[in-house]
């Protein structure tokens, strides 16, 4: 009820500003406004500072990247109208569009790219840090040309410029300021199809169309409301009643997926997050016994029926994960993998072998699994299932509930036994996968790094060799070996490859245009 009234008020308020072309087309402001939802509110809107899914969904409309990627992960022009690279992979040159302006009217130039890729992104965005570490210098050749000279070839360099990894930030706003406390973190400036308009804390974030957007035929809509909608049931009702147009990834609990799919007014896309390529995992603190013992981790994997996790806990959305690289991404090599089928007898044998014999009540060992605060969604259910499965091999698990700050702090500070999370692989192992296994990325206090403390010099070397190789066959050789070593070591407990859904009301079209889904923005969206 509240929901609709607010939408109507918002629509009424923007009526005065309806452009002539829109009035002529006979649609109302309400119809030309996209209504989306937020599971929880971000603390700020500084995209690289807190690069999570909800930020990608909002800031993807405000900030843009140099390149866009199609379904085959091939690069296409965006802010860069053209680019070339030398055959040895040592130099990339980008020619920028001359007709782009920031939302505050300042022209977009090479200075912004040099600042973003050279200073701001490596400092704030964990994935950029790794990618741009291969770059020796970034030079503004002229006002609209930027040159990247590499220390060594880095074959995932172009992919690392994907929108969700490398949004270009305004130098005139951020240069010389403290990025974390800049006041424009709460009213961001970008080049994208939608401009930031208003943020009412606890209620909504409103973006309006950018009338000077450089793609003249976009955006197709007047604005986007992101409303705070904290429970899964509310979000389902909002989608079914038409009060919300979009339900992204974690918005709809997989329990009701079948009901959403049966709704004739809603279109469901399973490919909207292919670019992220998420794997749901359990991470173990290798510093604590017995998690540092490979046999314990192998027993853990054998004790869990991951087919059940996919079929029953996640209602069929996804598939069993076999290793660090999702099966639909390049370099995946099934033959190289060491597999851990569901076999509780083997799990018991492994635990016996390492001396964890059943004690009183058949219990071999007690430990805790720290749960992500997802409001009882698939992560929580997965943890409950794992607790049950492990109890059958004599491992007694205590589940720990957390809130977001606690989860980030404890995982970053290595204060946990086992935790559960999902990580995107972002199209290339060098971008999304390496960060969890490189010993150089063991960094206390920073979540989403190698928080397990996994340390294997061979893996470090292989990741480096694979990233800088030029010959595709050689890259594949290194990544195959890596998949073998990582699965042999059970370097992480890969549970399943998630397949988040994107639902939208069929009154809209051209919503998902590439594997980056919402992270590429909703400029193309129009009324069906």
């Amino acid at each position, binding site marked *: 009820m509240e929901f609709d009234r607010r939408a109507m008020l918002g629509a009424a308020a923007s009526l005065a500003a309806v452009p002539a072309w829109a009035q002529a087309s006979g649609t109302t402001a309400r119809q030309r406004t996209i209504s989306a939802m937020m599971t929880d509110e971000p603390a700020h809107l500084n995209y690289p500072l807190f690069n999570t899914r909800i930020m990608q969904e909002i800031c993807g409309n405000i900030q843009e990247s140099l390149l866009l990627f199609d379904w085959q992960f091939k690069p296409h022009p965006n802010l860069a109208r053209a680019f070339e690279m030398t055959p040895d992979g040592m130099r990339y040159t980008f020619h920028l569009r001359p007709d782009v302006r920031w939302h505050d009217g300042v022209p977009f130039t090479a200075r912004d790219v040099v600042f973003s890729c050279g200073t701001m992104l490596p400092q704030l965005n964990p994935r950029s840090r790794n990618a741009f570490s291969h770059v020796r210098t970034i030079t503004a050749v002229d006002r609209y040309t930027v040159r990247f000279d590499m220390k060594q070839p880095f074959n995932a360099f172009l992919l690392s410029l994907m929108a969700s990894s490398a949004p270009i930030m305004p130098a005139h706003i951020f240069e010389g300021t403290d990025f974390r406390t800049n006041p424009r973190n709460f009213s961001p400036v970008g080049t994208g199809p939608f401009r930031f308009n208003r943020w009412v804390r606890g209620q909504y974030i409103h973006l309006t169309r950018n009338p000077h957007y450089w793609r003249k035929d976009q955006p197709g809509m007047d604005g986007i409301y992101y409303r705070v909608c904290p*429970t*899964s*049931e509310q979000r*389902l009702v909002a989608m079914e009643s038409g009060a919300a147009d979009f339900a992204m990834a974690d918005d709809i*609990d997989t*329990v*009701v997926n*079948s*009901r959403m799919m049966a709704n004739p007014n809603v279109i469901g896309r399973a490919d909207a997050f292919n670019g992220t390529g998420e794997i749901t995992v359990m991470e173990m603190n290798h510093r604590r016994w017995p998690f540092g013992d490979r046999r314990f981790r192998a027993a853990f994997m054998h004790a869990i029926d991951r087919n*059940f996790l996919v*079929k*029953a*806990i996640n*209602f069929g959305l996804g598939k069993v994960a076999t290793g660090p690289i999702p099966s639909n991404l390049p370099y995946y090599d099934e033959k190289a993998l060491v597999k851990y089928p569901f076999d509780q007898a083997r799990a018991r044998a492994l635990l016996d072998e390492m001396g964890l014999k059943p004690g009183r009540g058949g219990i071999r060992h007690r430990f805790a699994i720290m749960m992500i605060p997802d409001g*009882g*969604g698939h992560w929580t*259910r997965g943890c*409950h*299932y794992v*607790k*049950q499965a492990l109890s059958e091999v004599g491992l007694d698990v*205590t*589940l*720990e*509930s957390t809130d977001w700050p606690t989860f980030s702090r404890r995982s970053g500070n290595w204060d946990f036994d086992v935790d559960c999370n999902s990580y995107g692989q972002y199209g290339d192992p060098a971008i999304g996968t390496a960060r969890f296994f490189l010993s150089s990325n063991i960094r206390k206090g920073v979540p989403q790094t190698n928080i397990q403390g996994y340390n294997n010099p061979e893996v470090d070397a292989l990741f480096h060799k694979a990233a800088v190789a030029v010959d595709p066959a050689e890259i594949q050789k290194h990544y195959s070996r890596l998949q073998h070593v990582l699965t042999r070591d059970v370097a992480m407990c890969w549970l399943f490859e998630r397949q988040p859904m994107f639902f939208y009301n069929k009154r809209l079209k051209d919503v998902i245009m590439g594997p980056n889904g919402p992270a590429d923005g909703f400029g193309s969206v129009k009324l069906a």
Partner: protein
Amino acid sequence: MKDFLRVFFSRPIPLVGLVIFAVIVALALLAPLLFGRGPFIIVGMPLLPPGAPGLLAGSDVLGRDMAVGLAYGARISLLVGITSTLCAVGIGVLLGAVAGYYGGWLDDLLMRVTEFFQIIPSFVLLMVLVAFLQPSLSSTVIGIALVTWPQVARVVRGEFLSLRGREFVQAARTLGMRDARIIFTQVLPNALPPIIVVGSMMVGSAILTESALSFLGLGDPNLLSWGSMIGGSRSAMWVAWWTTVLPGLAIMITVLALNFIGDGLNDALNPRRRR
């Protein structure tokens, strides 16, 4: 006593309440014997409807047997309901008796403390308490006792105020009885009827409060209660009604039965209504 029983059982409503309550208590006590497995054991695919093979009440979002969950949930609900009420009655009787018996500044002081607890929204206070003490069974019991004792204290104080001037109390005092002895052996037994009625009603409301806490995820995550069953299944409400409706019905029936009993006790113990 005979009078009390005759009045209590003469009307159908308290009798129905008592029978239902007895069935629930029996179910809770016999749960481990009735079912060969604990409530957390996953027995099959999730969201199987009631009546599926071997599943009397269907399965929940994790594929656990709802029937087992309901029986074990009764244990938690009754345990929390009864122990927290006993604690609350203990605190309430002690403070109410002292305030009512002695009066004066002690009464003023204790009643201000009582009012302090009464003016804070009790559920908010409870959530803060439980979150502060870490969610567990004992923190739930302590929390509920701490927010519900004021109403007992109020009732007890009122009774004591009216009783302390009576002849039998004066007689006891003349005989040289100590205050504590007068309070517990002379006044308290005469003040018991309203305490019993309030207490029986409080068990019901404590069960509701515990359910609300667990629903919000502030119960003990390693125990299954009716509230946590609803909380954990609410996303499935639209595709599997039984996951939320059945524990909801269980809460409703239990609380209703306790209120029926409370009504019956009130009728039987209230001298003005006992004819």
